[in-house]
């Protein structure tokens, strides 16, 4: 008689697995990848390939060295490498990009136990490490194709220039139009400029139920409302910098954000608040990465505060 399998219920499963979720994120990032090549040339693709390859290699190598099960099949290293690349300027030296991928996978992810156990978003943290280590290369911007702006500076840097930190360096005439901002014809990291491409990816993730609307809407909404109150141009602030990339793809990272809708809302609002503070009062023109990293650190607390209330539960 055949050996029969006896196991605990359930005996059927939803089709989604970690791999399909990561695959969906990669699919959702495709429009942004295409936009990066369109606006910044073929080198964008080269940087993306280097980051992905190094990320996957590091994951494989580290797990080999530490005798842990190989997890490159779950595609999470691909996502990390790709997200990191999209957060870099197209001119970044390749060895620096590779270093960033190594930091993301080994230092931020694997040293904390691998997928699901890292406290901070690997791509974001690696980007910040690179910003500190290679400041000049990380803020060296080139003009995007199809942009008629004379300056290659990012719109946020231009605004910061007008508003006084580097007063006189730029004028409002250097700012791209709102349409250019939306399509992505502006200076910036290669994956962050096209709001349209990121939005398409975000809608795909929402439809596939990979992310929920709470974090991105709270994050972007807070930035819009606060900048409006502070007398900035809210639409401009919304589309500038890495807000769309951060709000849709980085702040929604499962491992480093709260699981419940209430927690996600608090997390998003916190990210938005910090972003505006850094943009308006900080030394850096952009604050999305820092705000997400800071909120990553608060995540365990937010997750604890926003625990669900059991149905019919009675507190003794």
């Amino acid at each position, binding site marked *: 008689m055949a050996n*029969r399998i006896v196991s605990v*219920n359930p005996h059927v*499963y*939803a089709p989604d697995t*970690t791999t399909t979720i990561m695959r969906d994120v990669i699919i959702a990032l495709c429009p942004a990848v295409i936009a990066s090549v369109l606006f910044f040339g073929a080198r964008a693709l080269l940087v993306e390939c280097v980051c992905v390859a190094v990320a996957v290699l590091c994951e494989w190598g580290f797990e080999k060295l530490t005798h842990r099960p190989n997890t490159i099949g779950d595609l999470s290293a691909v996502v990390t490498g790709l997200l990191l690349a999209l957060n870099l300027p197209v001119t970044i030296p390749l060895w620096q990009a590779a270093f960033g991928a190594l930091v993301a996978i080994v230092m931020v992810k694997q040293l904390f136990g691998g997928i699901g156990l890292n406290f901070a978003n690997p791509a974001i943290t690696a980007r910040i490490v690179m910003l500190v280590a290679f400041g000049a290369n990380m803020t060296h911007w080139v003009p995007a194709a199809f942009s008629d702006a004379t300056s290659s500076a990012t719109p946020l840097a231009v605004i910061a220039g007008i508003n006084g930190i580097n007063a006189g360096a730029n004028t409002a005439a250097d700012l791209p139009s709102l349409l250019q901002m939306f399509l992505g014809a502006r200076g910036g990291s290669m994956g962050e400029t096209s709001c349209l491409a990121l939005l398409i990816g975000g809608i795909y993730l929402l439809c596939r139920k990979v992310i929920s609307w709470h974090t991105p809407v709270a994050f972007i909404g807070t930035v819009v409302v606060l900048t409006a109150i502070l007398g900035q141009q809210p639409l401009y602030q919304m589309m500038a910098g890495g807000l769309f990339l951060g709000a849709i793809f980085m702040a929604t990272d499962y*491992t480093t954000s709260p699981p419940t809708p209430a927690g996600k809302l608090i997390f998003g609002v916190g990210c938005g608040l910090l972003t505006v503070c850094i943009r308006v009062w900080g030394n850096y023109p952009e604050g999305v990465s820092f705000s997400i990293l800071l909120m990553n650190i608060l995540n365990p607390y937010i997750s604890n505060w926003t625990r669900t*209330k059991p*149905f019919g539960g*009675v507190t003794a």
Partner: protein
Amino acid sequence: MFHGKLHGVHPRHMKNTAGNKPIRMPVPPVITVPMSMNIGAPAKPVVKPGDEVKVGQLIAEAGGFMSAPIYSGVSGKVKKLDDYLGSNGRFDTVIVIESDGLQTEYEGIQKPVITDQKSFVDAVRACGVIGLGGAGFPTSVKLNVDPDRVHNIIINGAECEPYITSDTRTMIDNASRIIEGAQLLQKYYTADRIIIGIEDNKPECITIMKEAGRGVPNFEVAELPALYPQGGEKVLIYNTTGEIVPEGKLPIDVGCIVINCTTLAVIAKYIETGMPLVEKVITVDGSAVANPQNIIVPVGTPIQDVLDFVGLKCEPRKVLYGGPMMGISVPSLDSPILKNTNAILAFDEKDAADPTPTACIRCGRCVNHCPFHLMPAAIEQAYNERNGAALKKLKVNLCMECGCCSYGCPARRPLVQVNKLAKAVLNKYNAELKEAEEKQKAKEQAKKEAGVNG
């Protein structure tokens, strides 16, 4: 305490057999009737090897208040009383009966005489019926309450488990019995509402029940979204009445009685004909089954006979009592059809394979799918630490093991299994806590007495 909508999951319905009117399977040569089919005390055999029995004849009497009598589903001869390892891993007594194939009805069958609520409850008890939705709770115990406490009678026609259509068939083929049962309940309990809850993926049942219930006072059909586990008792109560059954309480504490539609039909049949619960309509389906269908079999029919009758495509690798979300996998095809078996599902190699768990990615799907708003990922962590205090806070005791968390987990973590194990850890913790408390009390008492004496 407002909870909004309860969560759930959308497994594929797979109601392949909804259109199949149940057919009667040829009488099996041997039936094996276990004594522990209900929650509570096992029944006590009243027959001995060699005794002649007939269909509907008592073979075991209720073994206590929380128990139910058992009647023979075939006519024939008692072969032996045997030990048998149930699917719950416990040994149980079974009565093995060899059928003579004649299905002679027991001459002692007579309609019960019902004059009041007490005699009604007695009749339900005598009928041997238990919760046929799968729970196996003795129905007479559920109905043995002060009639004035009952405000809502909820008939469970949700049948939210994939594949199973036996309740669907009861509603289609026996709607009048369900209505008769509802009218009996209305007669002996002072309920304000009688609601039958049906998932909206069964429009035929909804139409038929609305038609059958026309003119019955206070009777209503609640069309519920097809969201598993819609038929969970607490879920159904909340979605039809808005009442929340608190921790440690019963539905009657919020004025509700929930009764499965097939259970009700069995009661109505017994009261009209005197024939107790001896046979079941079961759905036989799954990827290893050649011709999925609904069949009528005596309680005690071996699963092997059932599968032989419907035909197999291949040797089944996993066989379930019940649906794929909460069904129990059986190790042996000698296991019999129980009173509360509503389906036998047999799966091929591909569908039977257990997935390999990977690391939790903290996606939160288990939290957002749990109908009772529990946090399975956090429970798993607390369980790994054997942290009873944390498990108490996380209310793992409320878990009904519906399977939504495991179903939706992209890392395929065995969350239901962990919840089951975590309940044991919590029970141990509570017991230790109680013991420590009692010790403390005894100490204080001793001190006090010593103080008085000194």
